[in-house]
Each structure stands twice: as structure tokens, then as C-alpha cells.
């Protein structure tokens, strides 16, 4: 590893963070958009380079200021973090490139520079969580990304975003505080914040009450931030009333980053040290995952607002990821982790397309999107493709997740069949809620004063890029699968 390559883990965070401070100096607003997009694209390039390094060999570690861990702050990039970095920076870049018209329509011109600054801060925070190998730094970056996303969500013209974001803020803060309490308790007992070090030292005190309490606090706190059912109630409104492009970005990656921390903490630190934690983890998460899948899909079937519909679908999809993880097998974890990637592809594309629809429709409800398929045939086509991926039709990325998840459930034998049934029933529910939208868009009555809006070519292109990736990674899923397999093996390597 030469030259710049070894500094990439730090640059992954530093580039967007430093840039976010300077974006506010850029006027006119077009320049701010261009700069933000360029920085995001640069982060994406860094993530790609990191992924290539990770797939080529051993995980990358980086000691800040050359202070070695556990004394200094360490950054670490392995397969799991690489996968998430790709999702975060990729979603941000694609959304930003296409976002200009939508952001112009939704955010006042004089506030846009702050909006772009917050966007980059969110990218930096999310990336920071993923590269940190240190429990406290994860908290710091979690706060940075959360605060930035509160700003982003509240930035839209819809005043209902304010109560929504307030709810998110309260819930998010509770989650982060729980996490911090847990980390504090562990620090009290072990005297370390470095995850690898913690893993070693916790063994001696693993039967102590504070550690058990810490495990509870951390798992619940992170589940709250990850919107694991039934701690999801902040999510639908936050997604619904956020500016459309923010929804596209955050829906692809925000909750998944918390899931990432949850997996990392539980598998690296707790699983092998705490008596019976493996069982508790599975017994606690699996029912919640199943409930999340079924309830989320069921609510989505009857929802009238398209963004909220997709938000409830996200609750179900988070359930898929958790279900895979709660199987505690290589196949299950692979399926869950690869779904982090595949769901981001599908949901990102869907929300981008909704953003395009919103340019013409007065609101995103079933009654108001009639005829949009004729007005925006290209956008609608991409929407259908991404919808098929969400359903899990073969040839799309969503199918790859379902295939692995069902395969992993079948490994359990007869009890696994119940899980297979859950997965299939929820897939059928997805058919229902996606096809409701398709029918409304194709056959619904178009309003008389349907505005003649052309979707900006950049946005259509990006929507299609996102939709096509669903097909590409449905037919050639080697990259995400390889990363997921490796990540699953690494997580399981920490379980006795």
C-alpha cells in the first residue's frame, strides 16, 4: 500500500467534513450544488478505492496521528464497512447529481448553501461511524450525522416536517443516549473504548451486572436508531415530510448504518463473551424482525401517501436484514448484509422517482398521481423496475437477497419453513403495494390541470442509473455477495 492509499480511511471522513465548512461560502447556489456533488463524488471514489483494497487483501487499519491503538484513535475498514461506505457515498452522489431541480423547488434559495453543508456533514458523519474502530468515536459521528439529518429533514417546505423531525430528534437522542450509557458502563468496567481491545478485556468481567446492563442499553439504543420494529415510529413521518432528495439519500443508508453498529457491537464484543448472548440476541431480534416484516408490509398495503407507503416498506426491509442476522449462520448473515446493499439500490431508485413525480403532482397520494405514467413514461419505467427489485422478481438485486434469505431459512429444517412463509407472504404484500401505485399511475384519472412538466434530464438519468444497478447487481451480484460473505465470516469469527 503506497502513498495516499493508506490515508484513505481518514480521508473518507475528512474530505466531506472539511468541505461542508466551505460550502457555505459558495454563492451563487449553483456553485454550492456543484461543489457538494463533486465532493460527494470524490467520497464515492474513495469508497470504491477502499473496497478494491479490501477485496484485494487484509482489512485496512489507520492510526490517527500515528498513535497506535488502543491508546490512539483507530480507524478500520473491512468488508462490512466497505459495503456500507459504497452505499452511503453512492446514494449521496446519485441523489445529489439528480437533485438540483427538486431542491430548487423545495428549498428557499438563500438557505440552500446551509442545506448542502448539512448534507456533506451527514455524509461525513455516516462514513465516520462506519470507519471508526472505537466505541466513543462511533457515538460522536452518530451525533454529527443525526444532527445533520435533523436539519436536512426539517429543511423542506412542508411544515409537518417540523413535528416529524422533533419526534425523530427525541427518539434519536434517546437511542444515542442509551448507546452512550452502555459504552460508559463498559468503559467503567474495562477502561477501554477500542472495540478490539474491549473484546479482549470484557472476558474477565463478563458476568458483572454493569456489562449485562450495557449490552441491553446498547442493543436497544441502536435498535431505536435503526428503526427496528416496534421502535420505528419516528421513521415514516420523517421520511414522508423530508425533502424528496433527502428521503432518497437517507432511506438508502441512514438506518443501515445503525444496524451496522448493532451487528458490529453485538458480534465483536458481546457474542463470545456474554453467557447465552447468542441465544438472547436471536430470541430478541427474530420475533421483532418477523413482526416488522409483516406489520410494515401490511401497513404499506393500506397507506394512501406514497412516501409513507415506501417508508413502511422500509420498516419491513429492515426486518429482512435483522431476520438474516438473527439466524446467526453464515448464510443468514450473508443474506442480511447483502440486503443492506440491495435494498438501498431499490429504495433509493424508488424515492428518486417519487421526487420526479412530485415535480408535476400536487402531492404524492394515490388520488393525485393519476396519469403520471403517461406524463413521465421514462421515470415511471424506472420506478417499475425498482419496484420489481423491491418485490424480488428474478433478474433484480432484490431477488438475490430473497434467494439467500430463503436458502438460509431452509437450513433450519422444518422450523425454517415458517420463516420462508413469512418472507414469501411479505413479498406478495410487496406485489400488492407496488402494483397499487402502478395501477394508479397508469389507469388513474389524470387531474384536469395536469401541469406539463419535463423531468430534468439529469434526474431521469440518475433514476435510470439507480434502476439499472438493480438489474446489474441482480445478474452479476459478485461484488456485494463477496463483501457480504466475507463480512459474515468475519462477524461469525467472533462467535464461539
Amino acid at each position, binding site marked *: 500500500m503506497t502513498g495516499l492509499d493508506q490515508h484513505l480511511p481518514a480521508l473518507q471522513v475528512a474530505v466531506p467534513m472539511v468541505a461542508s465548512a466551505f460550502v457555505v461560502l459558495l454563492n451563487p447556489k449553483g456553485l454550492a450544488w456543484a461543489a457538494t456533488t463533486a465532493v460527494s463524488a470524490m467520497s464515492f471514489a474513495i469508497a470504491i478505492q477502499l473496497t478494491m483494497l479490501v477485496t484485494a487483501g487484509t482489512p485496512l487499519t489507520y492510526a490517527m496521528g500515528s498513535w497506535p491503538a488502543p491508546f490512539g484513535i483507530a480507524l478500520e475498514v473491512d468488508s462490512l464497512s466497505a459495503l456500507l461506505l459504497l452505499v452511503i457515498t453512492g446514494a449521496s452522489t446519485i441523489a445529489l447529481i439528480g437533485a438540483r431541480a427538486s431542491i430548487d423547488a423545495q428549498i428557499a434559495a438563500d438557505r440552500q448553501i446551509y442545506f448542502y453543508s448539512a448534507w456533506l456533514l451527514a455524509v461525513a458523519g455516516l462514513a465516520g461511524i462506519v470507519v471508526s474502530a472505537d466505541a466513543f468515536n462511533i457515538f460522536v459521528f452518530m451525533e454529527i450525522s443525526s444532527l445533520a439529518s435533523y436539519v436536512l429533514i426539517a429543511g423542506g417546505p412542508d411544515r409537518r416536517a417540523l413535528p416529524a423531525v422533533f419526534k425523530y430528534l427525541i427518539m434519536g437522542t434517546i437511542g444515542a443516549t442509551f448507546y452512550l450509557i452502555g459504552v460508559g458502563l463498559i468503559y467503567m468496567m474495562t477502561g477501554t473504548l477500542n472495540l478490539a481491545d474491549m473484546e479482549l478485556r470484557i472476558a474477565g468481567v463478563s458476568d458483572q451486572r454493569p456489562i449485562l446492563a450495557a449490552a441491553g442499553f446498547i442493543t436497544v439504543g441502536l435498535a431505536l436508531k435503526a428503526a427496528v420494529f416496534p421502535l420505528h415510529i419516528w421513521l415514516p413521518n420523517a421520511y414522508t415530510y423530508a425533502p424528496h432528495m433527502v428521503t432518497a439519500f437517507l432511506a438508502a443508508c441512514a438506518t443501515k448504518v445503525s444496524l451496522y453498529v448493532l451487528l458490529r457491537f453485538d458480534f465483536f464484543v458481546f457474542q463470545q463473551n456474554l453467557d447465552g448472548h447468542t441465544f438472547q440476541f436471536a430470541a430478541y431480534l427474530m420475533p421483532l424482525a418477523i413482526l416488522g416484516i409483516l406489520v410494515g408490509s401490511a401497513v404499506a398495503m393500506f397507506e394512501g401517501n406514497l412516501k409513507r407507503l415506501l417508508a413502511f416498506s422500509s420498516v419491513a426491509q429492515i426486518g429482512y436484514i435483522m431476520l438474516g442476522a438473527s439466524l446467526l449462520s453464515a448464510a443468514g448473515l450473508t443474506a442480511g448484509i447483502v440486503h443492506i446493499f440491495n435494498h438501498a439500490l431499490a429504495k433509493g431508485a424508488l424515492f428518486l422517482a417519487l421526487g420526479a413525480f412530485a415535480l408535476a403532482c400536487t402531492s404524492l397520494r394515490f388520488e393525485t398521481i393519476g396519469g403520471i405514467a403517461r406524463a413521465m413514461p421514462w421515470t415511471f419505467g424506472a420506478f417499475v423496475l425498482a419496484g*420489481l427489485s423491491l*418485490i*424480488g*422478481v*428474478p*433478474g433484480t438485486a432484490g431477488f*438475490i437477497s*430473497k*434467494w439467500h434469505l*430463503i*436458502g438460509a431459512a*431452509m437450513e433450519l429444517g422444518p422450523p425454517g419453513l415458517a420463516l*420462508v412463509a413469512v418472507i*414469501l*407472504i411479505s*413479498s*406478495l404484500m410487496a*406485489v*400488492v403495494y407496488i*402494483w397499487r401505485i402502478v*395501477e394508479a399511475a*397508469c*389507469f388513474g384519472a389524470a387531474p384536469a390541470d395536469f401541469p406539463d412538466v419535463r423531468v430534468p434530464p439529469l434526474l431521469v438519468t440518475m433514476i435510470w442509473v439507480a434502476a439499472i444497478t438493480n438489474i446489474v447487481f*441482480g*445478474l*452479476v*451480484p459478485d461484488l456485494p*455477495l463477496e463483501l457480504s460473505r466475507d463480512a459474515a465470516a468475519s462477524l461469525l469469527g467472533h462467535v464461539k
Partner: protein
Amino acid sequence: MTPENLIIAALIVPLIGAVLIALTGRINANLREAVTLTTAGTLAYIVWNIVPTVFEGGRPAVTLAEVMPGVTIGFEVEPIGMLFAALASSLWIINSIYSIGYMRGNNEKHQTRFYVMFAVSLAAAMGIAFSSNLFTLFLFYEALTLATYPLVSHKGDADTVKSARVYLGLLLATSIGLFLPAIIWTYGVAGTGDFVLGGILEGKIAGPAVGLLLVLFVFGVGKAAVMPVHRWLPAAMVAPTPVSALLHAVAVVKAGVFTVTKVIVYIFGVDFLFSEPSSGWLIYAASFTIIAASVVALRQQNLKRLLAYSTVAQLSYVVMAAAILKPLAEIGASIHMVAHAFGKITLFFAAGAIYVAAHKTELFQLKGIGRRMPITMGAFTIGALSMIGVPPTGGFVSKWYILAGAFQDDNYLAIATIILSTALNAAYFLPIVYMAWFMREDVPPEKPHGEAPWPSVLALAITAALTIGFFLFNGPALELERQLFMGTS
């Protein structure tokens, strides 16, 4: 071109055709129709060029990609698929001629979309016919469902949308809910989903699990329309008649029974399934469907719905024949796909022609129509006779083989079903023929009409001729299947 390249060409040509149809559709309707006909002709030419290789025992194969370890997108042409592909691609030419007459005669809207989706559907059908493993087959199976949705919902009014919802919902629900787990199960226990003569499951599963897996496959392949997953087929009748004719009498439904046959022959293996008592339910389910669908057909007043229920029954002939698990019956199953296709497409063409010329859809309106539309009703009569299985029509040939196969195993249930259903077929088709030719019109039409536009009449005359032709010249098709099931005799 090598046979391998021909396979790829057969998949790509209809897609290129679809793009060209979309482009020319904006310029000129005649040009667009010319593109459709050229594409159909090219596809048939390509497919027929693969036939000699398969006839000589060759099994040209291509693997495009390995999606996951052991899970590939691959194609291999074997006799049953060859027959299906040749059938669908050849009838597409005739159907396109018919469509021109029908769509223009009816002043249908969105004709470009219609022809585009038709071409895409044919590409999917070719993918199903040539697929070399379950995953590839499933990929194109779902593609066919989705590609036909815009054709079924073509009219776009509330009733049509509702029926199209049943169509899509039932086909997707069965395929995702039952077919997909069956496929994953198969890959799980066998480590592969490749179609291998003699099956891949022997020794991998046993006992009741075999029967259960067969349940998942047969009902998961909703396109085979074994009761109770047949309701999508009557619902699909809201589509324009050319769609009902080619897709819902040939390509889509035959894709269903084709899949069931392939699963029995190449996944389970005929001998393995024969040795497993838990698979015995299939013949009962198929027999029940044949009889029940025929009884329902007897009560229909709408011509297209009657034909739909007749199709449900005829499809289960194929399933039942395959389930007899004897070589002669398997040959009968493959041949019946062809024989029924010729007869049923003729019947649908006739029904569509009547609609275009006279705007009549109900049975009681057909009194005396034979005098106004003699060619159409002549073709209809031939098609009806083929459904009943009267010589000299194609339907007789396949029934002969299915019966011979049933006698090989002394399967009296199958024999009784065939006899009873022949009587029922006669009971619902012959009154129509009688009404059309020998009864007088009770209300004269508002304005006198003759035959439908000539392209439609030409098309139905050709398929009627094919129905009779298949009785006389069925040697090559039989020989092809005989090679597969009885060795080169």
C-alpha cells in the same frame, strides 16, 4: 450460424424487433406492421434452423453468466423445448397477420404498445423454451407474466384493470409463493437446478417430501392452470383477441404445461416419480380439472370465456398425460401442446373475427352466423372438432397417444376422464356449430356484414388448415419426441 448463436439470436431478435416497432410506430403504422412481420418471420426462420441439429440428437447449449455459484443463466435446446419454440414462433407470424386485421378493424388505441409488448412476450417465451435450468426458466417465466400485463390491461377501463389485477396477482402470487420455494428447495437438496434427462432428485429426497415438492411445482406454475389456480385465465379474456389467441391459447399457457412437463421429465425424472407413491395425487388433480373445467365451460354464455375454460381443461390433458409417467403418454403430452395450439388458436381467431365483423360475443347471438361468415365458421368447426378429438384433426393424434400411454399402465382413471371429457367437449362445442349453421337469425343485424377484414380471415384459414394438416403430417414432431422418450427407434 452455429446452433449456439442461433439460440442467442432467437432471444435477441424479438427484443430488437420490439425496439424497432417502438421507433417506427411514431412514423407510420404500415411500416410498424412490416417490422412486426419481419421480426416474426426472422424469429421463425432462426428457430427452424435449430431443428435439424436437435433432430440429429444434438443439444446445443450456451451459458451466459453464473449469477451465484451453481446458479447460471444458461440455455440448452431439447426436443420438448424445440417443439414449443417452433410452435410459438411460427404461430406468431400468423397471429401478427391476424392482429393487423383485428386491431385496425376494431380501431384499437395504443397499437404500438400492443405490438411492442407482443414482441417482448415472444422473447420471454423463447427464453422459457430454451432454458437449461430452473433459475433461467423462472427468470423468463416472470418476465412473460410482466410483459403480458400491459396486453391484458390494454383497454384500460375499470373492468379491464380489475381483471388484469387478478391475472397478475394470481400468476405472481403462485410463482413467488410456491414456484420459487420449490426452486430453492431443489437447488438446496440437489445442488443444481439443471434439466437432466432422468432427473436430478433421485436419492436426494424421498417419501412425502416428493409429493410436497410436486405440489409446490404444479400449483406454483400458475400458467398451467391446474384448478384451483386457473382463475387468471378467464380473467385474461379481457385482452384483445389476438392476445387471447397467441398468448392465452399458445405461448403463456403452453409455457405453463411445458414447465410442468419439463419438471417431471428433467427434474424429478419419470421413473423416480413413478416409484414414489406420494406423487400419485397429480393425476387426480389433473382429472378433476379436466372434468370440472368442462362442466363450467358448459354453462358459459360468453364465447371467449367458454374457450378459456376449454383451455383450462385442455391444459390439464397435458398435465395428466405427463403424470401418467409412461413414455407413450409423455409423447402424447408434448404432441397435445401442438395439437391443442392449432385448434384453439383457430377458435380464438374465429371468435375475434366474429367480434370485429358483427360485434357479437355471446353464444345466443351466433344463430345463423355461418351463412354470413362461412369461412370463419368453417374454421371454427374444424377447431371444435379438434378439441373433441375427432379425426381428421390434430386433436385426435394426441388423444390417441395419451390413451395409449394410459393403457400401458392400465390407468383407468385417465381413460375414464378422457372419455367423459370428450363427451363434455362435444356437448359444449357442437351446439354452437349447430346454431351457427342450421338455425336462423332471430334478429337481423343492424347493418349486414360479411367476413372480417381479409388478414384475419387468411390467418384463421391457415390455422384451420394446420389443424387438419397436423393429423396428416405429424411424423417429424412425433419422431422428435419419440427419440427423447423411447430412444432412437
